[in-house]
C-alpha cells in the first residue's frame, strides 16, 4: 500500500464521516417523511419493478456523466491525476452498503420532508456501485490511446471536442460497455438493498422491489417473496434483451483488433431496429443532430499547438499542489482523531479487528470453494464452443440477479433446520458474485488457443499434468479478473448477508459486515465509520498485496510476444 492510497483512504473516509455527521445535526428536526405503505399484493409488483428499474437507469446516467468528466480530468491533467486516481482506487474498495447510512441521512436532510431525499440517496448508492470501475476503465483507455491514432488526430487538427468523440470515446467503448455491464449486474443488488434502510430511528422504504421483499420478510410472507423473485427474473431478462444485448452488439464495431471476432455478438432487437424503416426515420434526425454535435469544432479562441517537446515539469507548482493536498489530509486526520477520541476506545478497535478477521476468513474460504467448483466446470464448458455460447449468457444473467432476494429462502431453511448461522449464512456472501468466476473462466478457456490444445492432445498430456501445464496457466489471467470481482462483491455483500431477519427472528453470523449492519440499525455513526474504515483498509490491502501482484504475474507469464 503506497502513501497515495493512505492519503486517499483518509480523505474519502473523513469527508464521508464529516458530511454524514453534520447532516445528522441538520436533519434531526425533520424526522417525519411521508411514505406510502408498501403493498404485498402481486399486482403491485410490476409498478414497483418499474420504479426500481428507473432508479437503476438514473444512476447509470449519472455514472456515465461522472465517468466522462472525472476520468477525462484525471487523464488530461497530470496533477489532478495524481490525486484523483488513488482516490478512485480507494472509493472502489469502500463497501457501498456500509456508507449508505451516511448518504441517506445526508440526502434526507438536503430535502427535508420530501421523498426526493431518500430517492436520491438510493440513486446515489447505485451510482457508487457503478461509477468507479467504469471510470477506471475509461481512464485506462484514455491513457492507452494508440500513439498513431493520437498523432493522426493532431495532424488532422481535430479540436479537443472532436478528438473526444471521434477518437477517445470510441476507443474506450468496448471497455466501457463491458464495465457498464458488470456495473449494472452489481447494481441490481444495491438497488434492492438501498430501497429499504433503517438508520437509527429513521426508517425508509421506497416503493420498489427491495422494499417489497423487506416488507415480506417482516410479515413472514413466503409467497410474496416468491412473486418478487419471479418478477425480478423477468425484469432481468427484459433488461438483458432490450438493453444489454443491443448495446453489446452495437459496440462490437469499436473493437480495435484488426481481425474478425470469433463470435460476433448479435441482438435481434438491434437487427430489427436497423432494418425497420420507421425506426430509421425516427432515429435519423436524432443521429444527424448527434453527428453534428460530435463534428462541431467547439473552438472559440484556440489553436492547436504542438507538444512542446519534452516539457520540464514546473516544480514550484508541483510542490504547492502536493503541499495543498498534504495540508488537507493533515487537517482531516486531525479532525478524525479529535472525533474518534471522544467516542471510540481501544476495545472497539479490538472488536472490529476480530470481526474483520472473521469476515476475511469467510471470504477466503468461500472464494476457495467457489474456485474448486467453478473452475473445472468453466473450463469444461469453455472448451465446448456450442455449450459455452449457451451457458455464457445464463452465467451473466445469474450474475446480475440480485442475490439478496434469495436470502429469505436460505434464512427460512436455517431457522427451520436449526443450523448454525455463523456457518450457514456465510455462503450468501458469495451467492451473487460467484458467477463472475464462472463466466470469466468460460471466457478464458473459450479464448484458449486451439493450437496449444491440439499440441497438448497430440503429446497426450492428460489428467493432472494437463490441468497443471495447459488449462490452469491458460485461464489464469481470466480467473484472477473473476476472483477479484467476486471477492470485492463478497465483502460488500457481507453487510447484508451476515445479519438476516425473518419476521422477528434475527440471525447473526458475527463478522465485520454484521458489525456495520448492527451499528447502522443503532445509528451509531462513529462505530459505523470505524467498521467501514476497517473494511476499506482490508480490501485495499488485499488488492495491493494479493490481487495486483497476481495480476502482474499472470500478465507476464502467460503473454506470448
Amino acid at each position, binding site marked *: 500500500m503506497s502513501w497515495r492510497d493512505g492519503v486517499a483512504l483518509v480523505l474519502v473516509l473523513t469527508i464521508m464521516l464529516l458530511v454524514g455527521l453534520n447532516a445528522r445535526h441538520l436533519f434531526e428536526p425533520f424526522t417525519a417523511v411521508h411514505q406510502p405503505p408498501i403493498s404485498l399484493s402481486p399486482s403491485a409488483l410490476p409498478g414497483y419493478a418499474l420504479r426500481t428499474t428507473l432508479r437503476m437507469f438514473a444512476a447509470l446516467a449519472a455514472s456515465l456523466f461522472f465517468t466522462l468528466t472525472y476520468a477525462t480530468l484525471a487523464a488530461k491533467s497530470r496533477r489532478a491525476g495524481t490525486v484523483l486516481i488513488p482516490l478512485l482506487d480507494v472509493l472502489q474498495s469502500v463497501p457501498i452498503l456500509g456508507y449508505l447510512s451516511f448518504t441517506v441521512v445526508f440526502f434526507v436532510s438536503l430535502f427535508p420532508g420530501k421523498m426526493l431525499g431518500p430517492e436520491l440517496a438510493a440513486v446515489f448508492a447505485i451510482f457508487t456501485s457503478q461509477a468507479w470501475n467504469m471510470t477506471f476503465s475509461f481512464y485506462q483507455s484514455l491513457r492507452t490511446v*494508440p500513439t*498513431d*491514432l493520437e*498523432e*493522426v488526430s*493532431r*495532424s*488532422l*487538427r*481535430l*479540436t479537443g471536442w*472532436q478528438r473526444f468523440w*471521434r*477518437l477517445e470515446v*470510441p476507443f474506450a*467503448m468496448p471497455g466501457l460497455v463491458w464495465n457498464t455491464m458488470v456495473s449494472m449486474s452489481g447494481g441490481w443488488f444495491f438497488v434492492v438493498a438501498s430501497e429499504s434502510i433503517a438508520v437509527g430511528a429513521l426508517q425508509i422504504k421506497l416503493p420498489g422491489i427491495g422494499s417489497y421483499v423487506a416488507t415480506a420478510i417482516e410479515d413472514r410472507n413466503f409467497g410474496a417473496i416468491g412473486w418478487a423473485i419471479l418478477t425480478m427474473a423477468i425484469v432481468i431478462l427484459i433488461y438483458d434483451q432490450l438493453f444489454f444485448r443491443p448495446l453489446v452488439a452495437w459496440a462490437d*464495431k*469499436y*473493437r*480495435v*483488433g*484488426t*481481425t*474478425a471476432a470469433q463470435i460476433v455478438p448479435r441482438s435481434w432487437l438491434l437487427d430489427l431496429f436497423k432494418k425497420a424503416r420507421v425506426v430509421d426515420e425516427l432515429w435519423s434526425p436524432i443521429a444527424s443532430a448527434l453527428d*453534428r454535435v460530435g*463534428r462541431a*469544432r467547439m473552438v472559440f479562441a484556440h*489553436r*492547436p*499547438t*504542438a*507538444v*512542446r*517537446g*519534452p516539457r*520540464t515539469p514546473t516544480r514550484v507548482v508541483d510542490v504547492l499542489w502536493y503541499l495543498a493536498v498534504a495540508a488537507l489530509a493533515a487537517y482531516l486526520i486531525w479532525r478524525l482523531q479529535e472525533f474518534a477520541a471522544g467516542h471510540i476506545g481501544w476495545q472497539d478497535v479490538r472488536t472490529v479487528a476480530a470481526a474483520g478477521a472473521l469476515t476475511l476468513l469467510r471470504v477466503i474460504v468461500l472464494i476457495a470453494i467457489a474456485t474448486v467448483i467453478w473452475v473445472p466446470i468453466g473450463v469444461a464448458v469453455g472448451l465446448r464452443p456450442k455449450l459455452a455460447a449457451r451457458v455464457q449468457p445464463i452465467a451473466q444473467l445469474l450474475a446480475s440477479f440480485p442475490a439478496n432476494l434469495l436470502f429469505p429462502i436460505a434464512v427460512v431453511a436455517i431457522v427451520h433446520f436449526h443450523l448454525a448461522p455463523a456457518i450457514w449464512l456465510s455462503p450468501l456472501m458469495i451467492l451473487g458474485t460467484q458467477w463472475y468466476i464462472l463466466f470469466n473462466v468460460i471466457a478464458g478457456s473459450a479464448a484458449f488457443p486451439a493450437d496449444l490444445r491440439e499440441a497438448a492432445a497430440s503429446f497426450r498430456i492428460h489428467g493432472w499434468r494437463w490441468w497443471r501445464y495447459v488449462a490452469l496457466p491458460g485461464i489464469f489471467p481470466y480467473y484472477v479478473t473473476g476472483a477479484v470481482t467476486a471477492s470485492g462483491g463478497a465483502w460488500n455483500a457481507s453487510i447484508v448477508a451476515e445479519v438476516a431477519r425473518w419476521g422477528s427472528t434475527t440471525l447473526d453470523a458475527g463478522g465485520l459486515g454484521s458489525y456495520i449492519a448492527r451499528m447502522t440499525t443503532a445509528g451509531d455513526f462513529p462505530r459505523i465509520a470505524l467498521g467501514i474504515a476497517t473494511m476499506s483498509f482490508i480490501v485495499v490491502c488485499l488488492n495491493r498485496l494479493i490481487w495486483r501482484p497476481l495480476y502482474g504475474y499472470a500478465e*507476464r*507469464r502467460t503473454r506470448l510476444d
Partner: protein
Amino acid sequence: MDTRNGERVLTEAKTPATSHIIDLEHVSMSYAKPNGEPLVVLDDISCSLRSGEILGLLGRSGSGKSTLLRIAAGLLAPTKGNAFYRGAPLRGPAEGIAVVFQTFALFPWLTVLENVMTSLDALGVPRERARVRALSAIGEIGLTGFEGAYPRELSGGMRQRVGFARALVIDPAALLMDEPFSALDVLTAESLRTDFIDVWLGQQCPIDSVLLVTHNIEEAVLLCDRVIVISSKPGRISAEIPIDLKYPRNRFDGNFREIVENIYSILTARTALSLKEMRALGGGVMQPLPNVSPYAIERVIEKLAGPPIDGRVKLSTIAHPLLPHVDNILTVAEVLPILEFAELSDGQLQLTPAGRIFATSDPEERKRLFKEHLLNFVPLAGHIVNVLQERKGHRAPRIRFKAELEDSLSADDAETTLRTIINWGRYAELFSYDDRTRTFILGASPDLVAS
C-alpha cells in the same frame, strides 16, 4: 488507377524548384534520461522541402528520421532550432500539411468514407461538401466501391490507400509520409508505390511537395528527387544525394544500381566509424546492441563463407531481393564487426579468419568461439560476468544492469541491448537468466546443470 490518358509529366515541369514549403533550421531534439542528462536524438539538422520535389529521408531505425518528420509536421516541437512552413514559424499541425503513417492510423470504428471525411471536419467543411470531396479522393486512389467498408475488412494495401485518400482530400501543400510502405508485403508495396507516382505525376495532383521517410534504400532511389541520409545516434545529416533519373525508374538500370551502392557505402562507413569510436573510447559497456539472434548470426556467417560469396560481399548485392528491408542486412552487418567475425568497409562485408573458422565448426566449437569473442569484444558481457562473480550466489537482478544501461542509452535501446545480451549469453552458456525472478545467473542454465 487513372493515368490521365497516359500523360506523364516530369517533375521539373511542376512548379519552379525555388520556393520552400517547409524549412528546418538547426533543429535538435533531445530527451531527458533517468539521470537527468539529455539523450540527443537529432543534432543540428537543417534542410528544406522544396516545392515540386519528393525528398527522401533515409536512415537506420533509431536514427531519428521519424522524429524529424514529426517536427516538420508540427506534431513535435524541437528542443532547439526552428521549423517553418511557407516562411512562417510552425506552431502545431498546419492546415496544408498532411501525414501518412506507417501503421495506417485509421479509425477502426469509422468506415472508409468517414475516415476520409474526418480530415475535412477539422477544417469545418460542411457535411455535404465534405462527402463529395471525400468520394472524389477515394476514387482517385482507386477505392471506389469500398466507401462503406470498415478498415478491418480491408487488406494492408487497401488500408494504406485509405491513408493516402485521407491525406489527399485536403489538397496538401506538403505530404509527409512516415515509412508508408514498410508494413506491407513486397508486391503490395510495389504496386502502391507505382500508383503513388502516377498520382504525383498526374497534372491535377494537388500535392505540392512530398517528404518520404524510409529505411529502404531502393525505395528512396525509386521515388525521390533528392535523398538526405541521416546517421544514427545522434541523428545528423551525413549526405545529400540528388537523383536525376527519369520516372518510371528501373531497379536494374546501371545508374540506379550505382546510386544504391553509393548510399550503402555511406551508411556502412558510418557504422564502421562509430564502432571504431566506441572502441577508441575504451569502456564500451554502454554500446547499444541490436536485436540479432545468435542463430541469425550463424546463418549469415554460413552464407558469407559459402561458394558464391566466399567471404567477401557487397552489401547492396545481398540486400536485394533476398532481404528487401535494408535494416535487416545492415543490422547483421553491424553485429558481425562487433563480434570480430567480419569487417565492414566501403559497403563491403568481409569475414575475419575467426569468422571463417566459425563457419566450418561443429555446434560445440561454435559456442566456444562465440563465448570467447563475446568476452573479448563485447564489454557488456565481460562486465556482467564480473558483477556476477563478485556477487554472493553469483546472481544479480536484471534491474541492476537495466538501470546502468539507461544512464547512457534510451529506455528502448537499453531494453533491446539487455535482451540481446541475454540471448547471446544463453547461447554461449556464459550466463543464464531467469525471467520468473528476473535475475542473471553465472554459468549455464541451472536446468541444464540439474540434468
